[in-house]
Structures are given as structure tokens and as C-alpha cells.
């Protein structure tokens, strides 16, 4: 079976090696914690509510690439596609805590929940208040409690980061972030799988002429498989799911994220963005800003997701804040 072709050193060391390379791009604004795969900002102000994100590696720049100014204060990294262990999360929690409590924000996956919860219990024993919010933006994965976190997660992190940099209490940050999460919807399409460095194997198989709408970032099944279709036909279908789910209504204001899965070209993403904006305009939905890029990837997986976040004045204020991180910089 075809194996992935990659340039790596020992595949068992990809996470710490990648982390070194990532921290270096921050010019001292972020540091790696000794002994564990976690990174935190070096300039977290005293008395700041802390935002900790994390999950399995292999989705770069998500999540760890979103640590930075007005973004997350720290990230806990697991191995590729595996949740970080409780000790990593705990160390990161202690490192970002500034006396005002810590918000855990991550995708709704069993492994992540088991590990972050165990860490939260340990943190509580050390007197650190932790609140947890799960990202569940993928409309293709059933009832809300089952929904997975995909590309829209980056919009949630941006709002949470802005709120955590601005508001004085954990409870307020939780409220704003919850509102953002309630207003984010995403849907994805997959063309081919990404691979796990340690096994060199792809996480799923898809025929050369097939795509799957709603497929998860690890190959979790979507809504349906079909033959290749043109961008416009595909985007129209994808948006149908999103628009009716919230539902988004005429006059709503949104920001848009068209996110690449890894090896999908900017050209394809930009053409998908063009159609997305046409459809939103036709539905009388006002676009505040659109972002196009590969922010939440799955190694060399091909495909993309479309995310919408409905904005009100409060969310817009946090969305408009400048940010500086490896994965997303805005001013």
C-alpha cells in the first residue's frame, strides 16, 4: 500500500523537534516548557485570565500555532492525532496561570476530554480554577453533543484570546467564548487522507474520483460520498448544511473561514471562497471579513472546510483585535 513520502528525522521525535522549530519563529515571545511538549507565552501579564488550548499534533498550525498576542497563552501538545497526556496539560496550566483561572478550549474528542479532565482535577487540587469549553463546530457529525471540532475552532480561539486579553474574570471570558461557540458552524470535504509519520500510513482510503462531504479530520465518516464535482456545486451543497443548521438569516453578519486540510492549493481555496461569498450575498448575509488559508490541517490531507461565525457587536469587537501568532497574524 502506498506510503507517505516525507522528509523527517526519527518519526518518534517529530513533536519535540517540531516544537523547537515552532518556538523559534516567535523570536522569544513564546517558550517551550522543560520536559513536556507544551509551549507558553513569555509575556503573560500578571492578573490575566489564561487561555490554554491543545490537542493532538499533526494539525499544524492548529492548535499550538495559535499561541500568541491576543490569542492563546499556551498550548499542550499530544503525539500525532493523540490527545496530550494529563501531566503535559497540568504543567502548561501551571505555567499560564496568573491567579485568575484558566480556560481550557479544545475540540470535542474522547481522548482530549479524558486527558484534559484528569488534568483539570489535578489543577483543582493545586488550587487553580479551570473551566472547560468544547469546540463542536462540525455540523456533519450529528447532534450537538457529538459534534467534532474542525476549522471553525480557529475562530473560537481568536474570540477567546481577545476576551481573555480584555476581560477581568474567567466567568466573563467563558461567557463570551460560549457565545462565539454557539455561533460558529463548519462543514468539510475530503479528497484524500493525511498520514501518521510513525506508521507512514494514510488514515483512510478514498477512490481517485470520490470525495466525502463532512468527513472528519481523522477520517471520521461524513454525510455522503460522491463523485468529483465542480467547486461551485460543492460549495453550494456545503453551505446548505451550514446555513440551515444555525440557521443563518438574511441580514446576519458573519466572518468566513475557508480552511485547507493540508495539500489543497490556495488556488482551490480562493475559488471556493469566491463561491462562498456569492452564495452568502445571494442569501442576504453580510460578510464582515473572510479568511482563506490552511489553519487547521491534517498532515498532507486534501480537502477543505468552510466555517461561518455569526457576529454581534461584542463578538465583532474581539474578532477585530490584532493578533500575532505562527498560524494567524492580523492587524
Amino acid at each position, binding site marked *: 500500500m502506498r506510503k507517505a513520502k516525507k522528509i523527517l528525522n526519527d518519526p518518534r521525535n517529530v513533536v519535540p523537534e517540531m516544537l523547537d522549530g515552532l518556538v523559534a519563529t516567535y523570536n522569544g515571545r513564546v517558550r517551550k516548557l522543560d520536559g513536556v511538549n507544551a509551549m507558553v507565552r513569555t509575556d503573560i501579564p500578571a492578573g490575566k485570565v489564561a487561555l490554554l488550548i491543545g490537542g493532538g499534533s499533526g494539525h499544524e498550525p492548529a492548535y499550538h500555532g495559535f499561541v500568541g498576542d491576543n490569542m492563546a497563552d499556551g498550548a499542550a501538545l499530544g*503525539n500525532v492525532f493523540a490527545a496530550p497526556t494529563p501531566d503535559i496539560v497540568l504543567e502548561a496550566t501551571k505555567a499560564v496561570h496568573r491567579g485568575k483561572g484558566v480556560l481550557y478550549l479544545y475540540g470535542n474528542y474522547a481522548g482530549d476530554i*479524558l486527558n484534559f479532565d484528569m488534568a483539570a482535577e489535578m489543577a483543582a487540587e493545586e488550587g487553580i480554577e479551570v473551566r472547560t469549553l468544547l469546540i463542536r463546530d462540525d455540523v456533519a457529525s450529528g447532534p450537538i453533543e457529538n459534534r467534532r471540532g474542525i476549522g471553525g475552532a480557529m475562530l473560537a480561539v481568536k474570540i477567546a484570546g481577545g476576551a481573555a486579553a480584555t476581560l477581568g474574570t474567567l466567568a466573563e471570558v467563558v461567557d463570551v467564548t460560549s457565545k462565539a461557540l454557539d455561533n460558529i458552524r463548519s462543514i468539510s470535504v475530503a479528497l484524500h487522507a493525511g498520514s*501518521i509519520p510513525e506508521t507512514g500510513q494514510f488514515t483512510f482510503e478514498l477512490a481517485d474520483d470520490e470525495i466525502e462531504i463532512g468527513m472528519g479530520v481523522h477520517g471520521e465518516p461524513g454525510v455522503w460520498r460522491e463523485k468529483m464535482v465542480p467547486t461551485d456545486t460543492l460549495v453550494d451543497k456545503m453551505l446548505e448544511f451550514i446555513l440551515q443548521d444555525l440557521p443563518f438569516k438574511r441580514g446576519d453578519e458573519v466572518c468566513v473561514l475557508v480552511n485547507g486540510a493540508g495539500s489543497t492549493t490556495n488556488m482551490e481555496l480562493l475559488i471556493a471562497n469566491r463561491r462562498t461569498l456569492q452564495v452568502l450575498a445571494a442569501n442576504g448575509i453580510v460578510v464582515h471579513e473572510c479568511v482563506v488559508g490552511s489553519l487547521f490541517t491534517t498532515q498532507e490531507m486534501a480537502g477543505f472546510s468552510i466555517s461561518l461565525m455569526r457576529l454581534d457587536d461584542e463578538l465583532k469587537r474581539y474578532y477585530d483585535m490584532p493578533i500575532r501568532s505562527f498560524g494567524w497574524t492580523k492587524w
Partner: protein
Amino acid sequence: MLLHVCQQMIGYTDILTEADKAIGDGDHGIGMARGFEAVSQKLAAGSYASLDQLLKTAGMTLITSIGGAAGVVFGTWFRDGAKNLGGVTALDARVLAAWLADGLAAVKERGKAKPGEKTMVDALEPAAVTSSQVAAAPLDEALAAVTEAARTGMEATKDMIASVGRAKALGERSRSHPDPGAVSTYLILKSMWEYAAEVMAPGQ
């Protein structure tokens, strides 16, 4: 004995990778290998006065080295299963039964998975039940029965639809494949039995 389990589980990497590729994300094999590799290093590093210390250390090591769902789940079994083993120094069928019973309870408590939801619980629960029934038997006989119970439970997961964990997402598609964690549970017990039968028993 635990060292033997570690070696065996590392050897099963590909089998577990395939099992997780079929219904999950394909990282279960390397995760378990990573975990039991770490445990064997811990064992090599220090010696342990009592069995519960050994199991607690092993459990904590699994939790901090595997990651994903399996780390917490299997680590909790090993660690919390030992919480009532006082300072026992030798493994016998009674100790085994206590370890499996308390481990199962802790895993269910932590993971909220019920039997029939296609998780390792479906292998661990029958193993624990059988173990309590053969608590008076010699260790190797007890482990033989417990391993068989785990195998049967593991086989049964093939007909289940995952409703918990990463594989949950696969719903119908997960049918006819065994649950990777259930496979691991069976293989861990099988390795213990092998050791008891081939290495310990002759010596007794």
C-alpha cells in the same frame, strides 16, 4: 511478569494499528507500544517493594506516555485497580480479581462507557466477572479462564456499533471490526497468562 507483558504489547503494534485504522485513527498500536516501552524502562530503573506500588507506577506511566483515550483508560485500569491491594507482594488469583474489579470500576467511572458501547470495557468486564469466580484457583488456571473471557468479550465487540470514543464517529461503519482497546485488553491478559503458565508455574 509485567516486563513480559510490555515486550508482548510492543510486539503487537501492527495488529493494533490495523485494528484502529479499521474503526479509528490508526494510532492505537504506536500509542500502546510507546506506553509499554515507557513502563519497561520505569521497571528497569527502580525496584518495587509491593505489587500495588508497581501497578500504580505502571498505570501512571501509561497515563503520561500513551496519550489519546487509551492512555487514561488503560492507565486508570492499572493504577486505580491497585488501590485496594494494600502492600501485597505477590500476584495470585485473589489479587488478580481485586485488581480487575477495581480497575473496571475506575475505568467506567472515568470514561462513562457502558458495556455494549464497543470499548475495552466490553473485554475488561467479562474478565473481571470471571476472575471473581476463579479467585481460589491457581494463578495460571485463573488467568487462562480470565483471558478466554476477555477474548470472548473482544470478539463480541465486532457486532457492536461504537458509541463512545474516536470510533463512535464511525457508527455503522465500525460494525464487524473488533474494538482496538478490547483487543489490547485481551492481549494484555493473554500475555500475563503465558507468563504465569510458561515461566512461573513450572517454577512452583
